[in-house]
């Protein structure tokens, strides 16, 4: 988009000289307060709205020169509340575009079935009508319908804003998974900054009046907001949220305070630690205890302190690790492997050091004191781990 302006007939300037380069095969999120021109921007891409000034090019070709129906058919379009056709079954809703471009009934329905599976809809829903589906299911149908003819571009306007937070998280994870498999060029509109940060490869923050405030990858947005508006919009805990972008892989773990439930008296006495983490014989965590409360051969799992929610180094981010440590009654975070076996524990202090190292690496500065040079915790900003 090159210096694109949209002025509605009533004089409202919805988008003001917006210049934006949207990368292929990744998710670009437009985010900003209500009325800042996100929807208008999105709808100029499929020409549901025509720009007043400026040009939009797709792969070097001016959109204005392309026939509008062909253009729209090459772009999937998902809207808030899905906008399903209530007189058609779920299967026929999804098959709409394939039917429209002449795939034939059989092939279109086959394709629709395939997509139902892809977006996580049970095949038994195929013959139902939209009113028989929950909001989240309808939204999945909306996504499937947009993907049906395999368009290279997907435009999504607040697709998940009408569902509750739990369902929304499921839909977001699903979208990321689908995107991993299909590699579409997605433009995604939301007013929810957390959603933008979670989904976006690039995030465009817009301000009222249709102007671009900042266009950057989410990690950069969190570390270097361009101005007060962006900083405000990001909210108070951007420091914590930024940790989502730092891998917990390099975190220094220790196994010293970890004891098995069948430990001998010497083993229980050996560690010099205020708390011990007791595991079962297979290494799965049972709980924390002070050493003096443990008697060899007589450790009862019920009397142990809860260990909170363990994190998986490599999969989870530093944010998850910190969260673990904060929630743990002992202040120590428990790390487990994929099978739930304890691989070690980390104190809040260790995690704090890892955070400083990660920040240092991300900011390209030398890490502060108290960090070991051999810890590559600065795989920062690459791994996008779940918070």
């Amino acid at each position: 988009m090159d210096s694109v302006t949209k002025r509605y007939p009533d004089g409202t300037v919805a988008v003001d000289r917006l210049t934006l380069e949207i990368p292929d095969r990744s998710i670009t999120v437009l985010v900003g307060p209500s009325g800042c021109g996100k929807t208008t921007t999105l709808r100029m891409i499929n020409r549901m709205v025509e720009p007043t000034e400026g040009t939009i090019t797709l792969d070097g070709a001016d959109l204005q020169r392309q026939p509008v129906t062909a253009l729209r058919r090459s772009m999937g379009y998902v809207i808030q509340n899905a906008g399903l056709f209530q007189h058609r079954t779920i299967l026929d809703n999804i098959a709409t575009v394939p039917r429209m471009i002449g795939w034939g009934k059989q092939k279109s329905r086959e394709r629709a079935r395939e997509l139902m599976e892809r977006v996580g809809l049970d095949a038994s829903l195929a013959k139902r009508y939209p009113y028989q589906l929950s909001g989240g299911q309808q939204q999945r149908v909306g996504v499937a319908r947009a993907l049906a003819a395999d368009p290279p571009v997907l435009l999504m306007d607040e697709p998940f804003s009408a569902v509750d937070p739990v369902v929304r998280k499921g839909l977001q994870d699903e979208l990321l998974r689908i995107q991993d498999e299909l590699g579409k060029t997605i433009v995604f509109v939301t007013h929810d900054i957390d959603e933008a940060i979670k989904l976006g490869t690039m995030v465009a923050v817009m301000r009222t009046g249709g102007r671009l405030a900042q266009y950057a990858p989410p990690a950069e947005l969190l570390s270097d907001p361009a101005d007060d508006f962006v900083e405000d919009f990001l909210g108070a805990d951007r420091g914590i949220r930024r940790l989502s972008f730092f891998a917990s892989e390099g975190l220094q773990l220790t196994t010293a305070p970890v004891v098995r439930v069948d430990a001998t008296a010497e083993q229980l006495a050996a560690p010099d630690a205020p708390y011990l983490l007791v595991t079962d014989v297979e290494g799965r965590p049972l709980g924390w205890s002070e050493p003096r409360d443990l008697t060899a051969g007589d450790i009862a799992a019920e009397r142990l302190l809860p260990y909170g929610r363990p994190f998986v180094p490599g999969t989870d981010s530093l944010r998850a690790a910190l969260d673990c440590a904060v929630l743990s009654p002992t202040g120590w975070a428990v790390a487990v492997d994929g099978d739930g076996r304890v691989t070690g524990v980390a104190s809040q202090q260790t995690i704090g050091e890892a955070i400083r190292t990660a920040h240092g690496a991300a900011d390209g500065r030398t890490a502060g004191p108290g960090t070991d040079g051999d810890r590559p915790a600065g795989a920062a900003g690459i791994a996008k781990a779940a918070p």
Partner: protein
Amino acid sequence: MNVLNFVNAFFSDSAHWHGYDGIPQRLLEHVQYTLLALGIAAAIGLPVGLLTGHTGRGGNAVAFVATAARALPSFGLLVLIAVVVGIGLLPVMIPLVVLAIPPILVTTYEAVRSVDPAPVDAARGMGMHESSILFRVELPVALPLVLSGLRSAAVQVVSTATIAAYVSLGGIGRYIIDGLYQRNYEKVVGGATLVALLALVTLAAFWAVGRLAVSPGVRRR
């Protein structure tokens, strides 16, 4: 003498069951007038209602035409036109069509207008042509209302088609007019009963069409 006796006498008189003045013949004529008038009114009211409803333009004109048409008295119109063009089918058809157009036109317009804009937006965004949007997205959802407009037009035409008898045509109105003239109340009541029955049959027919034509997804059951 009560009304039921009249009804009973009318329908049990075998003379009323055959010949050019028999019930089957009169019913057939009545149904023919109704269908013709309804067909013409639908041919005018439906396309205009669909188009104005889809584009959203001309809503005021629709309302104006409908109000004006409703203000015209059917019987007065019949007499007026009969005086101008003489006796025949035309003076009967014009008032019936004028009677039927407003409910068809206005309800169709309102029906299309009231379709949820989100699916329409989605359809347009996926590159559907305007005509497909109207017929494949808006009309199926608007259909129950469109049918209700046709239904009230049909019921009104069924009862008003009795005026055909005033200009020497047939239909059930014959019994009522002739009966009044001959002071044969058995005929009057019999004719009125037939009109009422035909109106009920019309309602039943529309109910059946609704069951068949409206998607379960729109009916929501």
